[in-house]
């Protein structure tokens, strides 16, 4: 479980986060939702241990992240960002191998190589492993980055050790195909004792994949709930839109349509 306790973050005299409390469940797909400027990215930086909150504590499975060493932290949680460019050309598999850097010293072990191979397989990039990263399409690059973060927290030798995958608007520059693929892979990780925390923008996509939702508004928690608590009133208030329920007759699924 990722536990956020009284997280506040102040820059100058601007309060970006104000007393955020949440418990993001183990082996669940947790979604952080909210309008621009609500403090989602700041909260993710704090939840990943990258920046320190002005006050408050972040705990992974009860352990304060500030007490985890840099290496321990890097093998416990991984972060997939929006889009990652590479300053120089490296083959895709070398980029994925970077995920193993916190695990080995001078040279990768056969096990590290095996994990890189498996990660490439999972994202469906095995046949492109030798291709220079900058020559891949945007969607393919994001697949390689996904493989990299998978490799980073891959630890089957120690089962039951909790792993955390944070996704920072991972699909915002991807077409529908790559979006679904990425989120399917992330969802599949829950079966491997992985906890997912994702910032997503598309409410329907979030409701389809997520188990638990943290809605932020102006640095405060507007709601922390499962899908049942996502009401029309809540969405309209947080996102300043009008929300309409529509039914997808084929899937029998409720969808939201938004207007101003």
């Amino acid at each position, binding site marked *: 479980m990722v536990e956020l306790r009284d997280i506040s973050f102040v820059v100058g005299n601007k309060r970006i986060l104000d007393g955020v409390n949440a418990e993001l469940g183990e082996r669940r797909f947790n979604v952080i939702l909210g309008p621009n400027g609500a403090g989602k990215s700041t909260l993710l930086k704090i939840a990943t241990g990258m920046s320190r909150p002005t006050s408050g504590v972040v705990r992974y499975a009860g352990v304060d992240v500030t007490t985890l060493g840099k290496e321990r932290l890097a093998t416990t949680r991984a972060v997939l960002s929006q889009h990652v460019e590479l*300053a*120089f050309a490296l*083959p895709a598999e070398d980029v994925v191998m970077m995920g193993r850097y916190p695990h080995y010293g001078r040279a990768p072990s056969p096990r590290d190589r095996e994990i890189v191979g498996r990660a490439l397989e999972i994202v469906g990039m095995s046949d492109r492993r030798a291709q220079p990263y900058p020559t891949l399409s945007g969607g393919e690059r994001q697949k390689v980055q996904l493989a990299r973060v998978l490799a980073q927290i891959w630890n089957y030798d120690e089962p039951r050790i909790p792993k955390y995958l944070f996704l920072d608007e991972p699909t915002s520059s991807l077409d529908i195909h790559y979006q679904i693929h990425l989120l399917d892979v992330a969802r599949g990780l829950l079966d491997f004792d992985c906890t997912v925390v994702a910032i997503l923008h598309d409410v329907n996509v979030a409701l389809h994949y997520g188990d638990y939702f943290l809605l932020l508004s102006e640095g405060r928690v507007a709601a922390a709930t499962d899908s049942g608590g996502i009401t029309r009133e809540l969405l309209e208030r947080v996102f300043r839109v009008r929300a309409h329920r529509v039914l997808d007759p084929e899937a029998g699924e409720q969808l939201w349509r938004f207007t101003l």
Partner: protein
Amino acid sequence: MTERGRSRLGTGQVCLLLGALLIVAAVASACIGAFTFTPGQVAHYLAQGLGWQAIPVGGNELGRRVFLELRLPRVILAGVTGAVLGVSGTLMQGLFRNPIVEPGLAGTSAGAALGAALVFVFGERTTLAFTAPLGSFAVPALAFAGGFVATMLVYRLSVSFGKVDVFTLLLAGIAVNAVCGAGTGFLSYVARDPQARNITFWNLGTFTTAEWHGVTLVTVCFAAGFAWCMRYGKALNALMLGEAEAGYLGIDTRRLTLMLLVVNTLMVAVATAMVGVIAFIGLVVPHVLRMLKSSDYTFLLPASALLGAVVMEVIDIVARVLIPPAELPIGIITAVIGAPVFLWILMRQRRGLSGFYG
């Protein structure tokens, strides 16, 4: 397109090949010059110098002394300086995440030169009095201070929000280099004549000053710096992803930046204090290696040391034989070769290739 023009040799094999090349170049450099030696003589003198072989009575005493006191330190100094500049270019390109950076551009060399020139000119008159300028630690110390301040300034100016802006980098480099160059120019202007001539010549890069004390200092600083920075191959690779991603991989990027700036400045400043400003080696060497093989820093670091040494030995031979009995300043040769390469890389970058050497 993936493997076009890239060597199929493994990284280890490329390094072995470069090592073999270095031996050939060093032996050639030891043999060629105003005094010509055969490889056999070189071997004998080396063995004698190391005390492995008795010095024959009535042997060629002049030849032996020229070799051991002039030629050999020069060969070593050229090799080590080349290695320093090659590694430095690699480190700086990794740190700035840009292939156009090298110690000449980032202000390290010019700042170090200014620091060293300060001691050359004012050293005798102030409390920094010492007998042999290069024998003292004042020159490398001030060279280090100058190089560090200049590099830090360029880095701070060109990096904002974890990203390097190429145009700011170029402009900051130009400005810092201009200020340091003006300072060094002013010093050679106010200096008395023999010193002024020396500074001017030294500022263009030269190995004629090679003597054992200085060579030892440069070599020790290189060895220590190189051994230290070899630990950062993985970290430099991760830094290619950007500062945030490298941080998520457990790398303390602030510490990394500081360590690299210190180690890099140490190696470059001490070498610059000895041989003057030699530009473009740090640019061309990593560039060739990236095209030839890979941008993986665990390969680039050792390979750029080896290739830098090879290139410098060859250039030093050229400098000695092109217009005998005079010698060309090293910096002029490297600029003639390096500047076109620099412009070519800049044009590739301007064309907006999202990554280099793809």
